[in-house]
């Protein structure tokens, strides 16, 4: 064990791919589309892709933090359904009639996001208090959460036209969809938290070496609790965006399969699924890559179903590359 500090200088293709693979893939996709896809270089295309990727990114932001601690949150889709079911019930006055529409919408947004956050805390409580593996603990709400949303609405579709609410899904500021702005804010805030705050550092430390983190005086249980709470909040916000876009809320569909999309974005973005290394910007890039692959396939005549298979392949490939980079 001499003072050689330069193992990193040896070129390792997996390490390189793990670091820059997503960026390269994204760049290649853009070049390919510029060359072969008609009307690709238009504001329209950018907006379509951004809007479609928004909810995934919002959820994936929370997921990145969770995975950063070495955990996982399977319940995000179900929590989206819960907040998506609860919000219309509030602003449509089904629970308590509220006269002022602004008040009603504000109450709906705040309460439903907080409820989703509370369910997230419940996940964290199971994990921190009982030391249940995250995948098992969040499975409970993965199963029960959608049921709760369905029971709340009796499985009925709630339709509505409340422009004050739907602003978050359909509104635009300077031509940019509000949800994109929302997404951008969340990405920036989360990236900042992860990089610049004590809390962010603690997340990575726990995922990187939980024993060492605890011995350094970090309150591991508390950090985990908060992280799952945040994941719940993110899911809650995403649920609102989805129903605002659709002008309706169907508890059977809101957030269905979102856990996989979010995990995929995180993995493709370069965050280690085993924890200890996380990047929010990477997650954003990962989500955009997956979205762009799908868009590329669809706009070149490949059926949606085949795109699913391709997506599965990308996920496996990304996770595999991450693992190889780690081993080397």
């Amino acid at each position, binding site marked *: *064990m*001499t*003072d*050689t*500090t*330069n*193992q*990193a200088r040896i070129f390792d293709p997996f390490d390189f791919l793990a670091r820059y693979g997503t960026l390269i893939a994204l760049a290649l996709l853009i070049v390919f589309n510029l060359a072969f896809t008609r009307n690709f270089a238009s504001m329209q295309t950018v907006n379509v892709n951004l809007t479609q990727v928004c909810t995934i990114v919002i959820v994936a932001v929370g997921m990145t933090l969770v995975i950063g601690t070495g955990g996982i949150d399977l319940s995000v889709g179900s929590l989206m359904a819960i907040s998506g079911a609860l919000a219309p019930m509030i602003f449509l006055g089904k629970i308590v009639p509220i006269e002022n529409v602004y008040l009603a919408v504000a109450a709906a947004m705040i309460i439903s996001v907080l409820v989703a956050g509370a369910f997230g805390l419940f996940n964290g409580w199971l994990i921190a208090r009982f030391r249940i593996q995250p995948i098992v603990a969040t499975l409970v709400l993965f199963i029960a959460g959608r049921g709760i949303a369905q029971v709340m609405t009796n499985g009925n579709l709630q339709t509505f036209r409340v422009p004050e609410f739907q602003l978050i899904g359909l509104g635009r500021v300077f031509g940019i969809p509000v949800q994109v702005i929302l997404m951008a804010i969340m990405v920036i805030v989360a990236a900042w938290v992860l990089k*610049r*705050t*004590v*809390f962010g*550092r603690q997340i*990575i*430390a726990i995922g*990187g*070496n939980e*024993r*060492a*983190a*605890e*011995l*350094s*005086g*970090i*309150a591991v249980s508390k950090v985990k609790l908060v992280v799952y709470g945040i994941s719940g909040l993110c899911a809650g916000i995403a649920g609102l965006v989805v129903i605002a876009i659709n002008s309706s809320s169907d508890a059977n569909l809101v957030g269905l399969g979102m856990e996989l999309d979010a995990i995929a974005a995180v993995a493709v973005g370069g965050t*280690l699924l085993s924890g*200890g*290394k996380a990047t929010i910007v990477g997650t954003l890039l990962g989500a955009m890559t997956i979205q762009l692959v799908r868009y590329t396939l669809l706009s070149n005549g490949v059926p949606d179903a085949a795109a699913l298979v391709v997506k599965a392949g990308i996920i496996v490939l990304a996770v595999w590359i991450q693992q190889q980079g780690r081993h080397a």
Partner: protein
Amino acid sequence: MTVLLSMIGIEKRFAGIPALSGASFSVNHGEVHALIGQNGAGKSTLIKVLTGYHKRDSGDVMFEGKPFEVFSPQQAQASGISTIYQEINLVPYRSVTENICLGREARRYGLLDWKRMHREAEALLQRFNVRMDVRRPLMEFNTATQQMVAIARAIGFSAKLVIMDEPTSSLDEREVAVLFNVIRQLKNEGVSVVFVSHKLDELYAVCDRVTIMRDGRTITTAAMSEIDKIGLVSSMLGRSIEKTDGHATAFGKRDKKNIGKVLLAADNLAVNQSVQDVTFNVRSGEIAGFAGLLGAGRTETARMVFGIDRPRAGSMQFDGKAYDPKKPADAIAAGMGFCTEDRKSEGIVPEMSVAENMMLALMPKLAKSGIIDEKAQRQIVERFIKQLGIKCSGPDQKVRELSGGNQQKVLLARWLAMNPRLLILDEPTRGIDVGAKGEIQSLVKSLADQGLAVLMISSELEEVTEGADRVFVLREGVSVAEFDRDEATENVLMAAMAEGSAPRIEGASS
């Protein structure tokens, strides 16, 4: 007696660093052979080479008179060499029978013959006078019984050589006695046993010969009747009794007037089996050393002080006040730091940078409403990198890319940045190259000169004799002796570690 196993000139390097250099080892038919040595002496590497877990770089192995070459523990097992690992490697949820018979099940009409397997398991255990319900899951039994099951499994494979890696570390006295009967019985049946342990009394109780390893070499092999405990200890620690001084470490002279009041006092601490009764104290500005063989309870005592494990008995005082830490954060808040023995699993966060690792404990204090003060951090980190001479490409280099010595310095800096009053160092220089070793030692000394209390655990005798102002000797979980700097010669310490018979000297503080 005829030779069953002989290993000659075994070489094994890991990433260029030699773990075994020309090690030799031989075991006779029907003998119980002790294999001892310090941590890192190469015992476990030697065993792993033998059982095919590691591939040797060179050297010859003969087993039953034939060249012996295996590539996996399973193959070794099939050839008659069974290993019982320190952490019992069985499946706790499964029944005793399954744990004994897995891998060589009895079949009838192609299906498992449970009746016969239960009978076989019972019969095997009965050879050691163990009667138990073999249908029950293994986890319902205590560790000693589980150990018996592991042995029964090993013998069930008609082993000719059974390797026991510290089998007694979690057993109580009665259980050890049962195990020894088993070993004697194996011996009577012509089975050879390799017995790894750090408890010297045990070696005399059950072993015929002993091989002592140090630095990847076999130092000596002798009949147990021909070597006394002090001889064992001195060959293990690499000091011949006559050896005089001449400084081997970089601690240098210390001035007694730097030493102040008692900062930490611990009375009659006990935890699990590993620590029975440990009493010691540390004064500010003093380096207190813990000496003892492996398994003497030194690390376990430190863990209690730092709030990692709760003591089952005893009390502590810190700075004159009752002190009862429930978690490491409490110890840190009181003003302590702890550089653990296992840097990799308990110290560094490998994917994080040098700066991030260094600031892990201090970070919350330095932050303004949760936001990291990058500038202040940067200054501190750069100061420590300079002050401790940490060789890295910069504060942002990943800590896993650093050498062991530099990683250790980063961890030291993690605690020094906290401005602690007591620093616990567990094997601070293990696995570190000579240059960095000296730097760390002189750093520890200068810290003590500035008033820091240091509790240093070290298995290197010269580190304790030259570095510590007072030395507490622990033996099998009991603090058996305390020596001042002038009294603490290597001979005296080794005598206390081996025999533990030196009278207990009460601390000056009491």
